[in-house]
């Protein structure tokens, strides 16, 4: 077995192992030289990035199905839990997304000076958890990694975050971190119950297992009665929906962003929220298809609320991070809508939107973080004329903003277009509302650009320096991805289409 096949066979395992092992090893870097931890984390995340690219490229979209599969026996009967790995056309792009964002996040975390070692330990652990969710095929491990991805958030926000006084109310980092954590774990309570319900059902059907492929087969065979699915699916829908920012369970997200440091916000909005949507697809739709079918009208309704509510909320926010936070809520609404269409184009659009929004919002947070680092302020009514001092930041932010409002040629458009298309076929009135929501997005993005970036240069911001080379590099790379996907989405879409097609076979 040559090196290449060896990598191929263990790529999925390695991509989960690498960040977690990296996190453990980071603990042993020198406390006196914080840069060491950063450099080491860069190395680790570069490896994961390489692996994620490898996995994505290696995925054969013609063959479809789950690939690069591998099973590590873990616990036998009666639990039958195994570390079963595999990616399909839906997971592969998300693995790539996480690889990119983790790498970018680590790079821009250079500004973390205090206890930087701990920071990277947690950040890498978070990354490992996210990879885990995307590549496992076992409910236990999916949940395991899901929680693992949530766990570090508390400390990452609590320790390295910032508290903000908004005059009429305060948002401390403790509050943000605690709320985020409790919300996400509350969501996982529901997921957990749902998982157990399925397991019990599998037990009754004579084959207790947590293996998702087997469970999916059982679902198709009709071992899970429709009544069961009808009450289990909402558990998944809301449980994972919390993480996806599903209205009205979204408030943790903007507050979390406001408190979180840059790299954490990037991962939070960039990939963590995608876990939720991914969970609805992977667990909800795959394992309880009948329940999904019954509940999708509700879900798409909530998704539409997300879109409009998020957009309108974003419009009157004064804090850059709140704007982006609510904008994420709004954009995740498109993802949710796309999923809920159960239409191949809509679901495909949702997956593409996850990728696109991940990059876009990460880019925005890089820039907001850079501004905050320099100006120590995020109030869009106070910031203005940044273009004079931070030309590059403005340029990148403008592109991210344009991507956010669905400008064609950037990735957001293709995704949103597909979501609209799917929704248009299935739920016409809601699709109309969602399309209108896209126009609202333009309002707040342009308002933000006009207020904070363009406009007279304020002497208060005369001391600001433009992006550092690292930040420029990260932002530039993200912009390139946005454009590349916008102009030629086929490489992603052909993979996504395969995955979505086999996902939707049962509907």
């Amino acid at each position, binding site marked *: 077995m040559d090196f290449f096949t060896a990598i191929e066979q263990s790529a999925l395992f390695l991509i989960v192992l690498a960040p977690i092992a990296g996190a453990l090893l980071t603990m042993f870097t020198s406390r006196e030289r914080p840069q060491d931890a950063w450099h080491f984390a860069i190395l680790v995340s570069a490896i994961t990035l390489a692996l994620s690219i490898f996995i994505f490229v290696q995925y054969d979209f013609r063959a479809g199905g789950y690939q690069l599969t591998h099973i590590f026996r873990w616990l036998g009967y009666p639990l039958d839990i195994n570390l079963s790995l595999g990616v399909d056309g839906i997971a592969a792009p998300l693995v790539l997304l996480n690889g990119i964002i983790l790498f970018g996040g680590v790079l821009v975390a250079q500004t973390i000076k205090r206890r930087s070692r701990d920071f990277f330990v947690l950040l890498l652990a978070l990354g490992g958890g996210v990879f885990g969710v995307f590549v496992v095929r076992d409910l236990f491990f999916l949940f395991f990694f899901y929680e693992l991805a949530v766990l570090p958030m508390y400390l990452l926000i609590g320790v390295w975050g910032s508290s903000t006084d908004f005059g009429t109310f305060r948002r401390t980092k403790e509050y943000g971190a605690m709320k985020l954590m409790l919300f996400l774990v509350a969501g996982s*309570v529901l997921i957990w119950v749902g998982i*157990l319900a399925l397991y019990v059902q599998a037990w009754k059907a004579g084959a207790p297992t947590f293996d998702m492929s087997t469970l999916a087969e059982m679902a198709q065979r009709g071992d899970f009665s429709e009544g069961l699915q009808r009450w289990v699916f909402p558990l998944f829908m809301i449980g994972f929906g919390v993480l996806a920012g599903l209205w009205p369970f979204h408030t943790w997200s903007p507050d979390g962003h406001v408190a979180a440091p840059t790299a954490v916000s990037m991962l939070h909005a960039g990939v963590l929220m995608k876990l939720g949507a991914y969970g609805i697809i992977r667990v909800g739709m795959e394992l309880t298809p009948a329940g999904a079918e019954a509940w999708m009208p509700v879900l798409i309704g909530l998704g539409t609320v997300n879109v409009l509510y998020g957009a309108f909320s974003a419009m009157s926010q004064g804090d850059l991070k709140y704007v982006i936070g609510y904008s994420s809520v709004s954009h995740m609404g498109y993802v949710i809508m796309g999923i809920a269409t159960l239409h191949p184009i809509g679901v495909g659009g949702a997956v593409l939107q996850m990728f696109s929004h991940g990059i876009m919002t990460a880019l925005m947070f890089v820039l907001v973080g850079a501004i905050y680092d320099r100006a120590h302020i995020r109030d869009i009514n106070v910031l203005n004329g940044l273009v004079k001092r931070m030309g590059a930041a403005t340029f990148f932010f403008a592109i991210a903003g344009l991507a956010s409002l669905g400008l064609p040629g950037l990735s957001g458009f293709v995704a949103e277009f597909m979501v609209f298309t799917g929704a248009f076929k299935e739920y016409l009135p809601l699709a109309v509302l969602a399309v209108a929501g896209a126009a609202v997005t333009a309002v707040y993005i342009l308002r933000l650009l006009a207020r904070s970036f363009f406009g007279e240069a304020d002497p208060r911001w005369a001391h600001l320096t433009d992006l550092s080379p690292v930040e420029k590099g990260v932002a530039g790379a993200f912009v390139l991805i946005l454009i590349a996907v916008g102009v030629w989405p086929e490489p992603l879409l052909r993979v996504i289409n395969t995955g979505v097609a086999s996902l939707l076979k049962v509907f």
Partner: protein
Amino acid sequence: MSTVTENLYLLTPEFLLAALALLVFALDLVLPESRKTWLAWIGMAGLTALAIFSVRMLAGRTESLYGGLLAVDQFSLFFKVFFMGLGVFIILSSVDFVKQHLSHPGEFYGILLFSILGMNMMAQARELVTAYIALELLSFSLYVLTAYARGNPKSNEAALKYIIIGAFSTAVLLYGISMIYSVAGSTHFDALAETLSSPGQAGPVLWVGVAFLVAGLGFKLAAVPFHMWAPDVYEGAPLPVTAYLAIASKAGAAALALRLISEGLVPAREVWPHWQIILAALAAASMLVGNLVALAQRNLKRLMAYSSIGHVGYLLAGMAALNIGGGMAANGIIFYLVGYAATSLVVFAALISFFNQTGQEEIADLAGLADRQPLLAAAIAIGLFSLAGLPIFAGFTIKFYLFAAVAQGGFLWLAGLAIFSSLISLYYYLQVIRQMYIQPVPGTAPDASGHGEEPSHTASHGQAVAGHASETAAAALRTPTGMLLAVVVAGLVAVLALGVYPGPLLEAIERASQVILPGI
């Protein structure tokens, strides 16, 4: 070999353990004050040797002694090793504490060893009176240990409350036993099961008897509504004793309850569903009360007490889910005990180290610990995350297993409630973690250089600086001493190992639970 000698032979580990305890007592008389630590080492070495010896001697054997009074089987072997192992670590973590805060160290270790003997007997008792005597051996030791900080009024009060409520519950337990005896004519577990399922004999007297029995065990486990002694005792007892109470005595009671329920109640198929409801109700009450009241705590030990009441709720949920051929719940309970023990050990060892250096035990005292002593803070944080049931720690795996078993046993709602109360528990665990990681070191709090909590804001816009506590020499703490460090590290390794690779342990557990509830 005659039956008697055979029986005696099988009890060799217990005899040796008793001998070890006596040896410690004896040596205490002769050793000079400065060498008392030797006693701890002797105790630990003895326990280790005994554990190894028990495994070598008893592995694979299943014997019933004295007409079914005692069972020397895989179940009891597992628990024996578990208890003795725990004993080693408890002694290891108390050495420094004892040296600093307690007098009469020799007796401390001796009594500890006796209590382990009590637990060993509890694990192998198959008869009520034997169980009762073993229980009392454990309890007496704990009463004394609780009162060990003689000058401390809290310790004193804790011991008083403990022994009076303990004696009260003993009376209840015994009254129950007497009623069972009066109906069944026997106090064997299996006779109980037979009587329960024979319609002619089962009547109010028997039922009340069993109810009283359950109440007595409930006291030992600190299950709601028999839990109220626990917070006071945990708070008042010397810290290592609190740890011992939380970890070992709970495990001992659980082992007894597990065998009693499996052999005495579960086989009575007709009435077992009723008991399941009772146990489920107790479980639900324990989870909710324990976790909710823990939200309002300020003292670390008291917090751990309420938290442990919550954990007992989970265990009881597992017991409610026990069934013939449903060994999964038994596995889950044992697995939970082991994981919980490892996790608590980490937390308590770290707390002991903290207490040894500062004499503080309020949650607020932990402020800034991450800056003062990162290792301790990390250990406590990991322990608490694990207790809250987050991966990659033992807490996640054990909870997942146990709750899966509960759900599989037909109590999905109870599993749901347990998961929900885990969420509540996460809140107060996070409060502790918040103190350690987010709050500044007391005294270094907000100053102009942007350290500490966020500076006060005047502008309507947000501006903040991340909290930063300076590591002044005064605030910094030493790393734990070698012994505590060993406990912390060993505990962490166990927590991680159980979290990611529980397979081998689960195999051993399955062998143990096969004995009491055969077949899955």
